């Protein structure tokens, strides 16, 4: 498990360095994720230590967002002024996004399946 954790941190560190060196507008961990994926493909299997630490981190993914969320308290003034407009905007937009995404994806999959059947 420790080896796996080290592997994740090393990929993240390398990712941060790449972002610093190239100033691409992407966070280091995302570049780190791509690096780990490439490494796994070279390795052709997932080491047990990497799998166990990754699966435990992902199981508690939602929890890891709590400290950032508490940061909303820094903007209580804005929120008390605009809370209804903000909530409605988020709600309607999230609904539209889910609907459009799922709908287009469904159509595309149907097309792919049809062309495979031909």
């Amino acid at each position: 498990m420790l080896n796996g954790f080290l592997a994740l941190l090393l990929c993240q560190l390398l990712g941060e360095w790449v972002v610093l060196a190239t100033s691409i507008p992407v966070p280091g961990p995302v570049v780190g994720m791509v690096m780990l994926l490439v490494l796994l493909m070279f390795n052709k299997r997932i080491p047990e230590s990497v799998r166990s630490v990754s699966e435990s981190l992902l199981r508690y993914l939602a929890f890891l967002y709590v400290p950032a969320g508490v940061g909303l308290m820094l903007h209580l003034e804005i929120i008390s002024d605009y809370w209804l407009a903000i909530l409605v905007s988020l709600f309607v937009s999230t609904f539209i996004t889910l609907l459009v995404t799922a709908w287009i994806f469904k159509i595309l999959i149907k097309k792919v399946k049809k062309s495979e059947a031909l």
Partner: protein
Amino acid sequence: MEFWIYFATKPLFWLVVTLSVFIVAVRLNRLMQGTPFLHPVLVSMLIIISFLLLTNTSYEVYFGGAQFIHFLLGPAIVALAVPLYDHFSRIAQMWLPLLIVCVTGALTAILSVLAIGYLFDLPDAVLLSLAPKSVTSPIAIGIAEKIGGLPSLAAGLVLITGAMGGVLAPFVFKLIKVDDDVVKGFSLGLAAHGMGTAYAFEFSALAGAFAGLAMGLTGLLTAFLLPLVVSLLGF
């Protein structure tokens, strides 16, 4: 000596508070049959914010302890490579539809929230903090900073979006009759980032993998697209 007393009490205290509040919030959520309206993350945020306000504690002091949890977001995002690798053959097989869906979905997310917020006459700083709402917080924070939004407001709005995604998803999937876990996962990850991904893992590991993929792809795409869209719209 004083240094150690400081170290042992304050950060540890807020770490313990965050963990125990979350455990209680998860229990509460189970008691209510897992309703997404009482998402454990939102309930924890509410309880902790109220507690901090009541005790007159600043966010900086709280974050001094909570940063140890926040820090794990980095390796957790790297860890998404594991479910991605597990399902890589299926992803490689359908890379083109995935890319098309991702571009349309990401643009829909950005443009719809900007349009609705604009109708409500929201100030620019709030609009620009709303724009990256479908992207995972570490990316959203970076984007908001870049385009002139308020990073910590953006991070909070991202989480509210995440919880809404969980509330809306079952309804939307029923409405347009989606029963494919690939579609469910991808839509959840695209519209509701990491919280949608966490929710998708409850459908199946396959749904979770595609949600993780959608979250990563949408994050990458939005990081490039949003500054462009914002300058085109003339902010």
